[in-house]
């Protein structure tokens, strides 16, 4: 242990400006807020930083605009036009409930990954870029703690985006089409309450995917000091996976792709829920989280911070 007794803090007769700081600044024994409290305080600060940023607020507005656009477009379009896809669009006229699902299914391909990529780019590369990373590290914030707070804030940010899309979708659907008991893809009918539970599960499933993409993104963010570079890199990776996943001839590669099972979210609207692809999807998410958080940790804790 370093000898704290041998190295006293500022003397007790320091000028008046310092004295109250000395008395109350460090919460030593007793008044110590505790590790959990301190951790939550840092997390709150991180969330405030994310949510306070104008660009992120605009991003949330864009995410929320999609379900509104869908609802209005379906409302003003010819109601007899019909399709037979699983994007829920054709069910909307009968039940506003499906606006939320349609919006999530549409945004999972680009907008939601883009939101995660932007937040991930800010997380480490962004702090390095504006020079705040070195400031945080000498506070000191240990590197593991910084990564942990960054990742949790990133996942919460993603959850907020997904919930927002779902809620705005529900509201827009309710206003334009009304909410009714939900006819599942299997043809059975769920009460509205049970339907909302299914929607909640969809929200969590999409968030799990974004959490996995966020881990990948956090790793990319530790590789550079350019947040835009990190964001673009993450988007390229995400989009490339969607493209590769759509090429039948590459079926051997598909199980390794994070996105392979993400559209299995429609299985949550079957009765009973068809869990096979969903559990594969969640396992893939988990594998990506473990691998890339470990990679981010290994990279970040050994990195020379010269920004």
């Amino acid at each position, binding site marked *: *242990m*370093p*000898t704290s007794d*041998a*190295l*006293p*803090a*500022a*003397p007790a007769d*320091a*000028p008046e*400006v*310092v004295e*109250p*700081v*000395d008395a*109350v*600044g*460090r*919460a030593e024994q007793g*008044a*110590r*807020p505790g*590790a959990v*409290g*301190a*951790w939550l*305080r*840092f997390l*709150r*600060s991180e969330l405030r*930083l994310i949510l*306070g*940023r*104008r660009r992120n607020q605009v991003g949330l507005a864009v995410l929320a605009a999609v379900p509104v656009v869908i609802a209005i477009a379906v409302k003003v379009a010819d109601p007899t036009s019909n399709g037979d896809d699983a994007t829920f669009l054709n069910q909307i006229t009968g039940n506003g409930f499906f606006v939320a699902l349609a919006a999530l299914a549409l945004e999972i391909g680009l907008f939601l990954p883009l939101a995660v990529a932007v937040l991930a780019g800010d997380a480490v590369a962004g702090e390095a870029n*504006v*020079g*705040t*990373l*070195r*400031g*945080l*590290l*000498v*506070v*000191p*914030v*240990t590197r593991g*703690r910084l990564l942990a707070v960054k990742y949790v804030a990133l996942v919460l940010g993603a959850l907020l985006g997904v919930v927002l899309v779902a809620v705005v979708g529900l509201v827009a659907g309710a206003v334009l089409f009304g909410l009714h008991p939900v006819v599942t893809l299997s043809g059975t009918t769920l009460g509205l309450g049970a339907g909302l539970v299914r929607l909640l599960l969809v929200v969590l499933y999409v968030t799990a995917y974004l959490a996995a993409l966020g881990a990948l993104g956090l790793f990319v963010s530790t590789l550079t000091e350019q947040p835009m570079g990190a964001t673009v890199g993450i988007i390229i990776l995400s989009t490339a996976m969607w493209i590769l996943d759509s090429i039948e001839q590459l079926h051997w590669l598909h199980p390794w792709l994070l996105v392979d099972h993400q559209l299995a979210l429609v299985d949550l609207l079957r009765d009973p829920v068809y869990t096979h692809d969903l559990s594969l999807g969640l396992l893939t998410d988990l594998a990506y989280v473990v691998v890339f958080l470990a990679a981010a940790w290994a990279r970040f804790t*050994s990195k*020379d*911070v*010269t920004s």
Partner: protein
Amino acid sequence: MSVAADAAAAPVLATSGLTKRFGGKTGQTAVDAVDLTVPRGAVYGFLGPNGSGKTTTIRMVLGLVRPTAGDVRLLGGRMPDDVATVLPRVGALVEGPGFHPYLSGRANLARLDAADRLADPRTSAQRVDEALDRVDLLGSARKRFRAYSLGMRQRLAIAATLLQPRDLLVLDEPTNGLDPQGTREVRTLIGRLNQEGVTLLVSSHLLSEIEQVCTHLGVMRTGRLVAQGSSADVLGSTRPSAEVTTPDTTRAAEVLAGLGLADVSPTPDGVTATLDGVAPEAVVAALVGAGVAVRGFVVRHATLEDRFIELTGGGFDADE
């Protein structure tokens, strides 16, 4: 730890053989076997041209950069392993102010305080405002960092180091971008903090700004520490020189050389030489006795600037 046991004598910071090579074995050596010693209670002026390795040394001391070789003992701990236990007692400003541009000065400090595991949240607002007050930024606390002038940014960075009582402050180029008034204020602040018992390590490439407050000096050149010690020791190793103003340049030079003075050289309006222990009055007497028309005679003691140029081989950016 036995080294820290006799803490009164133990330096606050000691590095030994501290070395950093960037880019592998064949890479450039930014810091080369530096043995830095910052005694308790000192104001240590860390000098060197741009690119001489000061900031990289500071980054290694603070655990931001991992040394290629050598070790760092900071406040009884070993860096970078003891970052979490040692750094709470160290305030540091590294390579210019880094803050979120769209947050206010106050919000930026509040964020740093929130990140501090040991800070008491109940006193956060109070401590943030006191730190802002100490650098005279309280009036601009609500302005966005983006709207701050360079001097205000620099002061905010200093305020960030004052959120907690510290044993050691590391200030890397704290006067960069400040006007003369601001520079004087920083110097006063350094002096006051030192009186309160804080040890300071202050780096600069501008000598005059730092010379007046330093008790100790270390001079870097191309990654090496070429001089270190108390200010008197580092400066005292230079000899005073005599500067004679006279129209009889040739005759004067002969007299000075005859007295055994070294480095005799003509100037546009006279001659200069190193005194080498010869009494100035004896030099004047000899000159007058030899019939040299002495219009002026000045004994110049080396300033830090002269010593610095002597140690670093001239130009400020010569070694990049």
